[in-house]
C-alpha cells in the first residue's frame, strides 16, 4: 500500500507517500507508533497518579478565561521565555520548529487516510509545505546548535549549582534525539530526491532545499544503493522519533506537557500572596513540615521545574554565596518526592477500606535535612525567581510555608529573629523601642493624629522605620512637610499605630502577623479610614494585599505614587537643581510585588538637573538590597553581604546618590556605602527627601543620621 495511485507532474506537484517502503512497512510503522504513544500515555498516567498521591487540595482551575490566556501567551507565543534573548531564541527555534514539524509529519504520513486532507496536499500547497518543513527543520537544528554551544561551551552558571552541572545524561540524550530526528530526516529526504528527481522526473525537488542540496552531492551514486540506504535511514528516523515520544514522560522533555499545564494552573492571586492560616485554635499543625503539607500544586511545581536556572541567575541569596538556589530547592524537593511517593502510594493501596492509611516515616526530614535551614532562611522574598520563571513556579510561598513550620510548630529559629518577634509583641516594632515614642518624629511638625482630627483625606501610615529609625524618621519628616506644602489633607495614628506585620509574616510568624494586622485594622476602621499612604513598601504591600483578609479594606498608595501625582498636578514645584549622578534602586516590594517602577522615576526626573543612570539590574530584574523576608532582622554570616553587592552595582554606574523608595533599602544602601568607604562621595536618599530638597523651601535634608538607639536591636532584659 504505497499510496502511489497518483501521478505527479508539474502543475500537480507532490510526492509518493511511503515511497520505497512497500507493504508491510506502513502497518509496522503504525504498530510501533502505537507502542510509543502507549508508553507516552502510560508514563503520564503513572505520573498523574503520583501527582494525586500527595499534597493538600488547592483549586487551580477557576477563571478559565484568564488561564487560557496565560497558556496562549506563555505557551504558544513563548512570551515569558522570550524575556531573555539567547535562551529565548534558542528555545523558540526548537519549540516552533518542532511544533510545525510534528504536525506536518503526522499529516504527511496519514493524510491518505484522511480524505478531507487529500485535496490539499498537491500542487502549490505541497510545494510551500515542503519548503516550510525545510525551514522549520533548519530552525530546530539551529536551536540545538545554540543549546549545545550554551551547555557545553558557554556553560553559564545557571545550568549548574556552584559549578556542578545538572543532570548530564538527560540533557545530552534530549539534544541527541532532537538532532537525530532532524539530521536523519534531511538525509532520508536527500536519498529520496536523488532517485525522485533523476528517475521519476520530480523537477520541483528544489523546494525541499536542504534535502535537495544533499541529493546533489550524491550525483553518480547508484540508485539501487541509494534506495537501500534510504530504507535503512527511513527506519532509523522513525525509531528515533518514536523513542523521543516514549522518552517524554521520563525526562526533562516532560516539560512539553508540564510547562503549559503549569502556565494554565498558575497563581492568579496578587504577587506575593500568602494564604492566611484560617483557624489557629483548631488547627493541628501549621506550615509545611512534611512533604504532604505542601499543596499538590506546590509539589507539581517541583516536577515542572526543568532546571533552566533563570531564578538562580538573579537570586540575591545564591549570588551572594548562600546555599539557597530556587532551582536547587525545587530539584531537591522533587528528588525527595520521587523517593517518598512510591512509599505513600504503596501504603495507600495496602490499607483496607475504612482503615487509616499508615505511611512509614521518611528517613530524612524535609525541613532541616532535605532543605537545609540555612537555605530556608537565606531567602529575602525578593520575588525575582517567581518573576522570571517561565513555568510560573511559586518558590516564595513554599519557603514561607516551611518557615511557618519552624517558627510556629517548633519555635526553632534564629535568636535574632526571636528577639525581633518579642519586640513586636511587646512594643509593636522590631526594635522594641517604647511604643509611646512612635510619634516623636512628628512632635514639632504640627501634624494632627486621627484622634485629634479624623476628618482627613489620607492616613499617613508611617510604619516602624519611619517612626523609630533615625534615618527613617528624616524620611517621614521630609514627606510630611512635602504633603503639608502641597496642601494634602492627612493625619497619622500616632501612638495608636502598630507594626504592619510584614516581617513577621514573611519570617513565618503568621500568628504574630495576624495579631498585629488585626490591631491596626481595628484602629483604622475605628476612624473610618479610606485612603492610606505608606512610605514603606512592606507596609504598603501588607495593607493592600493582606489586610483585606481580616476586614481591612483600604485604598493604599505608596508615597512615590502620591509625589509623582502631586508633581504632575503642579501642586509642588521643584526649582532647586541637583548635581551629580543619581541611580534609582527598585525596592522588591514596590517593583516586582506591586509593579511600581515608573512613578518614583517620574518624580526623580522632575527634579531640575537630574541625571538618572540605571544600574544593570533594574525594573523587573532589580537586585534585592537583602532586607526582605525578615532578613532585615537577621545576621548575614554566609557569603558576601547582599547590600554591598548592590552598592557595587551603583558604584559601577558612577552614581553619587542612590535613590530609594523603601526604608529597609535605605538602611541597606547606607550601610553598603559605609562598608565600601564611599561616605565622602556617595549617599542614599529616599525619593521624598530628594524631592523635598528640590522644592528648595528650607535647609536641605542630609543623609547623616544621629545613630543612637535605632538600627540596632534592643537587648531584652539586659541587666543594668
Amino acid at each position, binding site marked *: 500500500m504505497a499510496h502511489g495511485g497518483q501521478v505527479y507532474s508539474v502543475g500537480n506537484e507532490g510526492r509518493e507517500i511511503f515511497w520505497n517502503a512497500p507493504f508491510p512497512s506502513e502497518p509496522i510503522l503504525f504498530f510501533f507508533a502505537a507502542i510509543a504513544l502507549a508508553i507516552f500515555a502510560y508514563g503520564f498516567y503513572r505520573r498523574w497518579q503520583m501527582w494525586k498521591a500527595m499534597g493538600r487540595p488547592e483549586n487551580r482551575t477557576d477563571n478559565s478565561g484568564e488561564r487560557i490566556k496565560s497558556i496562549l501567551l506563555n505557551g504558544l507565543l513563548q512570551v515569558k521565555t522570550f524575556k531573555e534573548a539567547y535562551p529565548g531564541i534558542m528555545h523558540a527555534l526548537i519549540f516552533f520548529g518542532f511544533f510545525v514539524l510534528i504536525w506536518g509529519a503526522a499529516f504527511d504520513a496519514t493524510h491518505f487516510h484522511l480524505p478531507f486532507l487529500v485535496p490539499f496536499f498537491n500542487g502549490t500547497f505541497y510545494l510551500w509545505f515542503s519548503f516550510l518543513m525545510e525551514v522549520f527543520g533548519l530552525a530546530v537544528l539551529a536551536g540545538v546548535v545554540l543549546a549545545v554551544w550554551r551547555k557545553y561551551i558557554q556553560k553559564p552558571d545557571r545550568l549548574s549549582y556552584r559549578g556542578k552541572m545538572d543532570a548530564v545524561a538527560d540533557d545530552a540524550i534530549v539534544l541527541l534525539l532532537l538532532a537525530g530526528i532532524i539530521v536523519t530526516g534531511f538525509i532520508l529526504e536527500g536519498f529520496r530526491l536523488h532517485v525522485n528527481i533523476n528517475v521519476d522526473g520530480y523537477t520541483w525537488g528544489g523546494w525541499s532545499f536542504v534535502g535537495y542540496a544533499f541529493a546533489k552531492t550524491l550525483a553518480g551514486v547508484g540508485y539501487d544503493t541509494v534506495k537501500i540506504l534510504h530504507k535503512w535511514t527511513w527506519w532509523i528516523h522513525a525509531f528515533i522519533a518514536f523513542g523521543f515520544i516514549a522518552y517524554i514522560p521520563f525526562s526533562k522533555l516532560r516539560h512539553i506537557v508540564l510547562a503549559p499545564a503549569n502556565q494554565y494552573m498558575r497563581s492568579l492571586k496578587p504577587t506575593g500572596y500568602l494564604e492566611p492560616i484560617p483557624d*489557629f485554635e483548631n488547627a493541628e499543625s501549621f506550615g509545611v513540615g512534611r512533604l504532604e503539607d505542601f499543596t499538590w500544586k506546590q509539589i507539581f511545581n517541583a516536577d515542572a521545574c526543568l532546571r533552566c536556572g533563570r531564578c538562580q541567575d538573579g537570586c540575591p541569596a545564591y549570588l551572594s554565596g548562600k546555599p539557597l538556589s530556587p532551582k536547587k530547592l525545587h530539584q531537591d524537593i522533587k528528588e525527595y518526592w520521587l523517593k517518598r511517593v512510591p512509599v505513600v502510594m504503596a501504603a495507600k493501596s495496602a490499607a483496607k477500606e475504612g482503615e487509616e492509611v499508615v505511611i512509614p516515616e521518611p528517613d530524612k526530614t524535609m525541613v532541616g535535612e532535605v532543605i537545609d535551614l540555612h537555605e530556608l532562611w537565606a531567602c529575602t522574598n525578593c520575588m525575582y525567581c517567581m518573576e522570571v520563571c517561565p513555568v510560573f513556579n511559586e518558590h516564595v510561598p513554599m519557603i514561607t510555608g516551611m518557615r511557618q513550620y519552624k517558627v510556629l510548630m517548633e519555635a526553632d529559629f534564629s535568636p535574632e529573629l526571636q528577639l525581633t518577634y518579642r519586640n513586636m509583641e511587646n*512594643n509593636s516594632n522590631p526594635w522594641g523601642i517604647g*511604643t*509611646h515614642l512612635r510619634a516623636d518624629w512628628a512632635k514639632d511638625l504640627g501634624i494632627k493624629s486621627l484622634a485629634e482630627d479624623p476628618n482627613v483625606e489620607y492616613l499617613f501610615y508611617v510604619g516602624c522605620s519611619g517612626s523609630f529609625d533615625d534615618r527613617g524618621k528624616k524620611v517621614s519628616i521630609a514627606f510630611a512637610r512635602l504633603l503639608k506644602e502641597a496642601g494634602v489633607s492627612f493625619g497619622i495614628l500616632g501612638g495608636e499605630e502598630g507594626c504592619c506585620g510584614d516581617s513577621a509574616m514573611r519570617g513565618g510568624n503568621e500568628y504574630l502577623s495576624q495579631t498585629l494586622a488585626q490591631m491596626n485594622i481595628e484602629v483604622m476602621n475605628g476612624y473610618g479610614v479610606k485612603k492610606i499612604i505608606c512610605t514603606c513598601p512592606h507596609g504598603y504591600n501588607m495593607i493592600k494585599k493582606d489586610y483585606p483578609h481580616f476586614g481591612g479594606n483600604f485604598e493604599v498608595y505608596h508615597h512615590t505614587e502620591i509625589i509623582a501625582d502631586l508633581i504632575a498636578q503642579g501642586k509642588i514645584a521643584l526649582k532647586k537643581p541637583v548635581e551629580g549622578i543619581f541611580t534609582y534602586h527598585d525596592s522588591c516590594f514596590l517593583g516586582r510585588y506591586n509593579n511600581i517602577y515608573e512613578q518614583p522615576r517620574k518624580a526623580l526626573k522632575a527634579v531640575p538637573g537630574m541625571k538618572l543612570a540605571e544600574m544593570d539590574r533594574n525594573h523587573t530584574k532589580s537586585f534585592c538590597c537583602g532586607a526582605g523576608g525578615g532578613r532585615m532582622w537577621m545576621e548575614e554570616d554566609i557569603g558576601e553581604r547582599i547590600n554591598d553587592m548592590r552598592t557595587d552595582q551603583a558604584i559601577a554606574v558612577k552614581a553619587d546618590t542612590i535613590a530609594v523608595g523603601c526604608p529597609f533599602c535605605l538602611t541597606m544602601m547606607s550601610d553598603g556605602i559605609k562598608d565600601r568607604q564611599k561616605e565622602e562621595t556617595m549617599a542614599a536618599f529616599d525619593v521624598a527627601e530628594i524631592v523635598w530638597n528640590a522644592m528648595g523651601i528650607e535647609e536641605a535634608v542630609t543623609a547623616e543620621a544621629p545613630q543612637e538607639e535605632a538600627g540596632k536591636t534592643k537587648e531584652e*532584659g539586659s541587666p543594668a
Partner: protein
Amino acid sequence: MNIVACVKQVPDTEALIKVKADGSGIEEGGIKWVMNPYDEYGVEEALKLKEKNGGEVTIVSMGPARAMETIRTALAMGAEKGIHITIDKADEYNTAAALAAAIKGINPDIIFCGQRAIDDDSGQVGSILAELLGLPVVTLVTKLEIADGKAKAVKPIEGAQLLIESQMPCVITAQKGLNEPRYASLPGIMKAKKKPVDVKDAAALGITVQPKAKIVKMTPPPERAPGKIIGGDDPAAKAAELAKLLREEAKVI
C-alpha cells in the same frame, strides 16, 4: 523531677513609667506587662531540667488578675500547671511568705526564681523564700547541673567564678547567661489556654499580709540636663573650653 518556677509580671523595659502624683507607686495605664526577664531564665532552666529528667514544672506567681497572662506565657513555653496567688502587692517578706505557702504542698526538688525583678530591683524574694522553706539557696546562677541528687551551680563573682554544690531541694536564683529562653510554639500557646491554674487568695493559703516594710515615697529620677555644644572655629580654643568645663562644671578631671 518536681520543679517550681516563680515568676513576676513587670512593666516592659521600654514602657513609659510615670510616678503617681501622690508618690505611692506608678501609673499603670497604658503599660505593656511582661514576664520579668530573670524569671524567664528560671522558667527556661526548669523546662530544660524537666525535658532531661522527666517530671513537671509548676509556675507560681503572685499579683493582680493580669498576672495570669504571665503564668500563661510560662505555660506556653512548656510548663504543666500554674498557681496564681491573687495578692496584688506585698513587701518582699510577705511575697516570699505567700510563695512559700503555695509551694509547700508541692514538695519540689528544685525552685527557680529570677535573681531580682526589674521593677523594684530588691533581689530578696528568692533568698527569703529559701529561708522560709528551710532550703539552701544559690543566687545569681549562670550555669547549673544536676547530678547524683546534688545541684552544681556556677555563679560569677568579681574576677572569678564560684562552683557551688548544693544539696537538694534548693532554691536557685537565675542570672542572665544561664540560658536563652525559648520562643513559645503556637501549639504551646494554644495548649496553655487549657492548662490548669489554681487561683488562691491569702485566706486559701492560710496567710495574712502584715507588711514588714513599706514604700514611703516614689519619685521620678531628676531630668537629665541638656547637653552643651561648644561653638567656635578654633579647635585649640574649643579644647581649652572643654577642659575647663570638664574640670569646673562636670568636675570629672
